[in-house]
């Protein structure tokens, strides 16, 4: 006997809508059982995971801060993935964007002007896009596999940043510790509202999501992206160039990742350090698929994923579970969401193979 996934002829609209809710219910049930087995009160645990982080203003701000880079990167990636270009190197583009954007506040720290911040953002986007141009060029003109090249460039970016903050960009007043000088006020992305730390990076993420949603839905470019993604051949007949699409999608997602990088550095960290991202570029891939590659879905997915991070911390404190348990719980949620989504498109089929059945019986 073996199990196969068979594509469904028709996708149920009802269950497409219900699937996230079913997944959520399953997570609650199994998560509850897990907490109960650990001897923790499941209601308290679930409360601290999903409600506590939303119950205070400061915590909502933290949610926005955590979600912003995830959403911004994932929105760019959705364009890539939709057009069948697999940019796995957003983490590297995030870092290169942060580095390019930091040139002004770190190297030209004396120059203070209201122009600094917009220029930083532009240079951040440029840095990310240029770094994404490498795998784009290699794929468009050398036919290399962009999954490998973009992924490997992540390590290049990480080590480049590491070298910069330990070497040429090290803060002269920083006791030899590996970090750049802290940004001047002019170079810090301001807070959006007075009640907390949320900076404009969150606004960038939302604006980007709406713009890309509009593009995908109402413009010819959006149509081109989907057609080329589904069938390159069909796209060629329509006069679309898949080579140009490689460039377009890679540069766009690189620019978004770069903007996320410089926003995070300028808004949240305010200096460069050897490590500036806890893997946002990789987590964003999960966010993109959780949001079904739909920009508005990605906003929701980014917020939910950020919530599980914050909830994990809240749960550590309020019910005293270890950080590992909170990771398992996060895994449960992702597992159920993705498997429910899979089951919308596929059905599970058990195949009983007579021949092997008889031989295995004979051998017994």
């Amino acid at each position: 006997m073996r199990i196969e996934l068979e594509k469904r002829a028709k996708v149920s609209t009802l269950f497409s809508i219900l699937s996230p809710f079913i997944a959520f219910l399953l997570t609650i049930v199994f998560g509850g059982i897990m907490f109960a087995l650990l001897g923790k009160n499941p209601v308290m645990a679930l409360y601290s995971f999903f409600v506590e982080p939303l119950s205070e203003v400061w915590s909502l701000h933290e949610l926005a801060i955590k979600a912003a880079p995830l959403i911004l990167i994932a929105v760019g990636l959705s364009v890539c993935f939709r057009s069948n270009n697999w940019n796995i190197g957003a983490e590297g583009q995030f870092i290169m964007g942060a580095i390019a954007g930091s040139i002004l506040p770190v190297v030209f720290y004396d120059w203070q002007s209201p122009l600094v911040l917009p220029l930083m953002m532009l240079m951040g986007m440029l840095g990310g896009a240029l770094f994404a141009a490498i795998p784009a060029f290699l794929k468009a003109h050398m036919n290399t596999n962009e999954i490998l090249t973009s992924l490997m460039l992540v390590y290049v970016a990480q080590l480049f940043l590491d070298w910069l903050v330990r070497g040429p960009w090290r803060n002269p007043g920083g006791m030899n510790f590996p970090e750049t000088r802290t940004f001047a006020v002019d170079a810090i992305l301001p807070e959006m509202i007075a009640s907390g730390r949320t900076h404009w990076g969150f606004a960038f993420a939302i604006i980007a999501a709406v713009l890309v949603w509009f593009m995908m839905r109402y413009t010819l470019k959006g149509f081109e992206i989907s057609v080329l993604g589904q069938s390159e051949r069909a796209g060629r007949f329509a006069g679309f160039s898949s080579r140009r699409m490689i460039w377009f999608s890679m540069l766009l997602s690189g620019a978004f990742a770069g903007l996320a990088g410089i926003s995070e550095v300028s808004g949240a960290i305010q200096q460069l350090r050897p490590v500036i991202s806890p893997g946002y570029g990789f987590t964003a891939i999960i966010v993109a698929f959780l949001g079904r590659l739909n920009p508005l879905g990605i906003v929701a997915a980014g917020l939910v994923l950020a919530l599980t991070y914050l909830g994990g911390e809240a749960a550590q404190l309020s019910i005293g579970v270890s950080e590992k348990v909170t990771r398992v719980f996060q895994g449960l949620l992702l597992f159920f969401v993705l498997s429910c989504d899979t089951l919308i498109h596929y059905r599970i089929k058990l195949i009983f193979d007579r021949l092997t059945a008889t031989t295995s019986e004979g051998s017994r």
Partner: protein
Amino acid sequence: MKKLLLVLASTTAAIGFATGASAQEKAKICFVYVGAKTDGGWTQAHDIGRQELEKALGDKIETQYLESVPEGPDAERAIERLARSGCGLIFTTSFGFMDATIKIAQKFPDVKFEHATGYKTAPNVATYNSRFYEGRYIQGQIAAKMSQKGVAGYIASFPIPEVVMGINSFVIGARSVNPDFKIKVVWANTWFDPGKEADAAKALVDQGVDILTQHTDTTAPMQVAAERGIKAFGQASDMIKAGPETQLTAIVDTWGAYYIKRTQAFLDGKWETTSSWDGLKDGILTMAPYTNMPDDVKKLAEETEAKIKSGELKPFTGPLKKQDGSEWLAAGASSDDGTLLGMNFYVEGVDDQLPK
């Protein structure tokens, strides 16, 4: 569906019991860890300190902690969460938490903070550190006695002063026994990565070192040393379990005494900003039992330890030259703490280029 109802029903029953007694008067003392509390090294040492604190003052305080908190914006959030949840005194136990600690401390002037191994203080932020290098001097002497080849391997984390200081102290100690002693340094560029640390250890053994020491947090190098049949030193926690036949000694961070002292001051209302930098004599640093070595080496190590404790021996005492041969300390002169805390140069005898 029935199952779900059952779970919900049983849990609502449970919640009734949970919200019973809560001790209001107990002060909350909180900790932020950079690693898992069971990492076998740095974070575990802090967590043992926390447990000792609970044992000593458990009737007046309760403790809470967040573990595996990444440095950066996440740290800021974690510290703020603790400050908001009613913690009176918060220990942030990694160098990378420094700026986050300072930022949150400005927001919560009534909460006291203690940051480990940093250099920034504020009216409500104290710093504390340990003179790890005192232990490294002893290790250096042992290494020079035990090594057949006169070369030790050193797995370093990041080229920050604390680590450079340790390398120098190890070399000065070793050269006090064997003036030709050499070390090979590998920069792992991580505090906590069993894979990378093991790779570094293997590379060093392949290059012919017969003693390993580490300034990273996992027991992986100790295990490699055990497999390859050479000797090694533990770091931060006693790692004898990872190498019963291998560990010579370990620098064991014993933060408990400091945590108890500072918490007591906090409870008495006598907490003040300080920059504390204690060592072997204050008990913040202890040496794991000297094992797997002949008696004469053990005796030397014990004597050196006693001399450091009494203040008779200071590892950074001249005559010492820098790596490039220039004069650093004249005979009999000892380095001041400021130079040590900003140390960015090697002493003579280190066979490595400091990453620039």
